[in-house]
């Protein structure tokens, strides 16, 4: 008879894990919301707002659940509005600013492919609340990836100008993709306990999917091997601070009020 190793994860630690993914989604939702009223056409206004809404909705679910797990008396809104950039644990990719539609779609595409794999993995989480959230998120991510990869292909294989703009966007965003698959102690622990997913295990499928679309789009993956890192431990690029300052300005100006 073998003794089963105790892989139970502390409740608070699981909350911290959820907050990472909530942060990813809130920050990307906020970035997309910046683009509302700036899209190339009305159909895309609808799509961008809709996708922003999905990310922010997902963040809200994750924060709400996390707030019941982490230490101290907190709420989903407190987690979103009252933490600083050092406390935010999103990956660097989602906080990157965009200069035009190419950046918006490339950032989205690289993240969508990751999120689809992540939520697929988490849909069988041993934690029933998280698996419920993940199943819904997986459906949304499927749609998001379809939308963003179609744009990559369309514009990569469009005019020479659209091709070159998309390639520039890929070159700008690529160095923030390696971080998506970095694994730390927390990732390993949640994966071992059967409630989370180890990002390392998602990387192969992500590379295959991304390479496929980029190839079909007649674009290429940059050769520069440099990869940035640090978001999960709160070491961000300088772009997150101003974004949070704007997002939190009203909530922080009038602390403790109901809206």
């Amino acid at each position, binding site marked *: 008879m073998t003794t089963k190793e105790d892989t139970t994860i502390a409740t608070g630690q699981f909350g911290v894990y959820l907050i990472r993914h909530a942060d990813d989604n809130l920050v990307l939702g906020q970035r997309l919301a910046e683009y509302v009223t700036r899209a190339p056409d009305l159909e895309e206004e609808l799509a961008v707002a809709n996708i922003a809404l999905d990310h*922010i909705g997902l963040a809200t679910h994750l924060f709400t659940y996390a707030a019941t797990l982490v230490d101290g008396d907190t709420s989903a809104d407190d987690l979103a509005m009252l933490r600083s950039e050092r406390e935010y644990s999103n990956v660097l990719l989602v906080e990157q600013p965009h200069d035009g539609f190419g950046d918006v779609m490339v950032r989205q595409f690289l993240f969508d492919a990751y999120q689809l794999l992540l939520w697929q993995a988490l849909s069988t989480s041993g934690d029933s609340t998280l698996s419920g959230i993940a199943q819904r998120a997986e459906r949304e991510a499927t749609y998001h990836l379809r939308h963003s990869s179609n744009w990559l292909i369309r514009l990569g294989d469009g005019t020479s100008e659209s*091709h070159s703009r998309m390639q520039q966007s890929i070159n700008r965003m690529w160095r923030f993709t390696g971080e998506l698959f970095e694994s730390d102690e927390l990732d390993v622990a949640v994966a071992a306990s059967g409630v989370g997913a180890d990002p390392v295990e998602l990387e192969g499928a992500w590379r295959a999917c991304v390479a496929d679309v980029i190839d079909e789009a007649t674009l290429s993956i940059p050769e520069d091997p440099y990869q940035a890192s640090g978001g999960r431990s709160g070491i961000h690029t300088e772009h997150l601070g101003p974004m949070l300052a704007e997002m939190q300005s*009203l909530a922080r100006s009038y602390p403790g009020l109901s809206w």
Partner: protein
Amino acid sequence: MSASLPSRKRGQKRERQGRSLREVLRILGGTWIRGNRLENPAEPRSEGKKKLLANERSFVMMIEFDPWSTVKNRDIDDEGQQKFDDIIAADEKVEPRDWMPEGYRATVIRQMAQHAHSEVIGMQPEANWILRAPTLLRKSILIAKVQDEAGHGLYLYSATETLGVSRHELEDLLHRGRQKYSSIFNYPTLSWADMGTIGWLVDGAAIVNQIVLQGTSYGPYSRAMVKICKEESFHARQGFSILMALTSGSDAQKAMAQDSMDRWWWPALMMFGPHDSESTHTEESMAWKIKRMSNDDLRQKFIDQTVPQAHYLGLKIPDPELRFDSETEQWRTGEIDWDEFWAVVKGDGPLNRERISHKVRAWEDGAWVRAGASAYADKQVEMLDKSA
């Protein structure tokens, strides 16, 4: 004939039979439309191609629009006129393929286009607060509302296209200042309370107008209004809910709500347009049953429903002359500042220039995207033609 109508040389006819697949696809933006399947039966679709094409969406942006396709006869037509008059007299709906007088067509196009432009420009003042919404829930609701407005715009542009004018022609007229949008959106949103006030007063005023417009004589417009009214009432309720939270909140929140009321009350009343006696389009529009109630009557209806709501919220209406007329049981307001009204209509409101330049910039920034998508669609058509 209105400047908004495309011109056609007399006798010019479009051959609509025997179009090649290539042409049809080009008109549809080179897309496979699911549900209303357009497929080439001779084309065996490989898996790769299927993947490539299956998810293509229809890009109205690429439609080569044939403005005359819905028009049977644009010349003077006695029989058509009689039928049109009968439809109007019987309170029935005029449909896109019915004969209609040029003036009617031009008026409906102008009104629907203005309505569509208002939805789209109206996204800007609210988008100004999405990023700063104070809670996650409020942020989500506001994004959903702005998204609805884009949807209304799209829906109304499509309904306008049934009259033989393309969306992009209309957008172009907007960008060049040749067509208008509701002046209310030229005012700035300066506090979170403005999100409440816009929902409550601005959407509230729009609903008063739009409920009556459900009875308008042009079928596609009337049906658009039924759908849009449902969503607008959600918008008005969310606005009222924001103000309920503020007026039952702290002193600072109450002050924020009152300041917003002070800035938006009069512009909201102006939304119904000039007095009936000054309105150039009212009489004809009423005869054609495009318009079913006059500007002043609609405004009065709005005032009577809104004043008690303001009292309920504990907000003061910024009008020293406001009084209840117990004989007619109506609220009487002071006179609107018509100088301000006309200044804003003519382009000298606080943000007229910013609203249009923002819209034009987005359109120009998107040019390479539209060109890229269009080139891609053309390549797909070429590929299909080659393999056909």
